[in-house]
């Protein structure tokens, strides 16, 4: 085998010696040290070879999928899952293999459904996967990849269940309440689990709440009256349920550690703020929609500033700046390609840029 790595190292050592950076003795010791190490190409070739073998097996199995009897296919998948589980148990590449085991378990459930031509929907499949994968993922996984795969699975399961039952929920007037209960249940996770998973779900649901309240402000752009909205009671019930649930979670958490009244007020007011444009009727105004968004994020910036969360403060300032630019484009988009439009747009961008820099600098000093 051509030792490209060794040749490159020797050449570099010779250059350092010729430049007078190292003496002959040091050059000799460095060359001997590098020569004693295993060639770097061997592990890379081993990985490529192993991957090639694995891909070849997958290709052969895929090409003959229909010819392989169902018990053999399922048996092979079960054996693979058991082998991965035992590998996790022995501690080999634990985080990566937990991720693989989790994905393979979902695949195994789908494989059984496919083999017996079951007619269940995606919600049942994902709920089954959550029931099976949650215990080992929560108990053993520590990394972000596993946390976010599980979170994606949770949201996919909830989303598909919601879609599959949307008509029944709408008929019962429970659309808002079901969404509220989902958010509150996740937000209350630290009450059941004080560790990283509880904090993770709590933060994710806070993110969902903020995203939903922010996105709801676009409804101000619509042109409808409150009387046009047949599900007004549903929206009110959902907002009330969310507010009551979130307040209860904050009250319970405050028993462990001193609460932050302004954060509690912000979180409890968010569902009502999200419901407001639906209940008031659209204002048919891009400016009102932008104002609703900016006001909400201004509140977030003030909370972040008070709590010393510089990163969140920066995000809030940038979100407001981006929204101001967007509303300008919405309102004066037609003028942008004229001379007046370009001048006005440029002045606005310069002003926003100056203001953002100033706010972020002040925040940095305060921190």
């Amino acid at each position, binding site marked *: 085998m051509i030792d490209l790595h060794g040749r490159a190292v020797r050449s570099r050592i010779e250059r350092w010696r010729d430049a007078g950076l190292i003496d002959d003795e040091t050059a000799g010791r460095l060359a001997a040290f590098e020569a004693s190490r295993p060639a770097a190409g061997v592990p890379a070739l081993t990985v490529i070879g192993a991957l090639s073998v694995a891909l070849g097996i997958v290709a052969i199995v895929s090409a003959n999928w*229909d010819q392989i009897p169902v018990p053999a296919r399922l048996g092979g998948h079960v054996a693979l*899952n058991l082998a991965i589980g035992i590998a996790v148990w022995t501690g080999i590449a634990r985080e990566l293999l937990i991720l693989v085991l989790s994905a393979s378990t979902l695949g195994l*459930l789908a494989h*059984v459904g*496919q083999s*017996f031509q079951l*007619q269940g929907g995606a919600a049942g499949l994902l709920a089954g996967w959550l029931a099976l994968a949650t*215990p080992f993922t929560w108990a053993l996984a520590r990394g972000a990849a596993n946390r976010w795969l599980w979170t994606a699975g949770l949201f996919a399961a909830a989303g598909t269940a919601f879609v599959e039952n949307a008509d029944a929920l709408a008929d019962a007037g429970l659309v808002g309440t079901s969404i509220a209960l989902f958010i509150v249940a996740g937000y209350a996770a630290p009450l059941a689990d004080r560790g990283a998973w509880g904090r993770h779900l709590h933060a994710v649901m806070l993110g969902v709440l903020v995203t939903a309240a922010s996105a709801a402000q676009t409804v101000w752009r619509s042109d409808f009256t409150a009387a046009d909205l047949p599900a007004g009671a549903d929206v009110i019930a959902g907002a009330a349920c969310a507010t009551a649930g979130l307040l209860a979670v904050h009250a319970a958490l405050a028993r462990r550690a001193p609460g932050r009244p302004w954060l509690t007020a912000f979180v409890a007011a968010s569902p009502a703020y999200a419901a407001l444009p639906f209940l008031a009727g659209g204002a048919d105004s891009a400016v009102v929609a932008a104002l609703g968004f900016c006001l909400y994020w201004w509140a977030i910036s003030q909370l972040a500033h008070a709590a010393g969360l510089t990163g969140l403060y920066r995000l809030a300032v940038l979100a407001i700046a981006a929204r101001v630019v967007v509303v300008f484009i919405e309102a004066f988009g037609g003028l942008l390609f004229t001379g007046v439009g370009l001048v006005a747009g440029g002045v606005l961008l310069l002003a926003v840029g100056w203001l953002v820099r100033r706010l972020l600098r002040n925040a940095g000093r305060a921190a």
Partner: protein
Amino acid sequence: MRGHRLPILALLILPTLAVTAWAAWLAAERTAQPALRVAITGYDPRDLLRGHYLEFRLDLADADGLACACLHPDPATPRHPAAVPASCGAPPPRDCRHFIAEPRQVYRYYAAEERALALQEELAATPGGIAVTVHFHGDGTVSFSNVSAGGVAGSTSP
């Protein structure tokens, strides 16, 4: 940590064993479940395939609008059993061996690529269309096997 080694192994292995037990139960149930060969029609009559899935309805002329039905094999019209209305809420009557909910819904059947293309050709070449074996679970849900142009007409149940 050493004391927790076995519970951790159980956490990692039990989900797979649970799915294995479920698959074994499905296989055992399938041999005991009543089954019927029923003709199918494409959800889109021009095109039965959706990727690797066949999308189809059971070809039951008298089942339109029924929430639940009992299918009764009819020797005069093999692969087209008669659909008799049944109550969805109550348990099916004793003589209702082939109880089905929403008999005209769209079903999906997975087929590997080559098999799916062959089925498409079979459908085009067979005047009477193709049929599927319907396995009745007793609670109104069904599963399928053996989509093909041939097959035994009428009941295939044990």
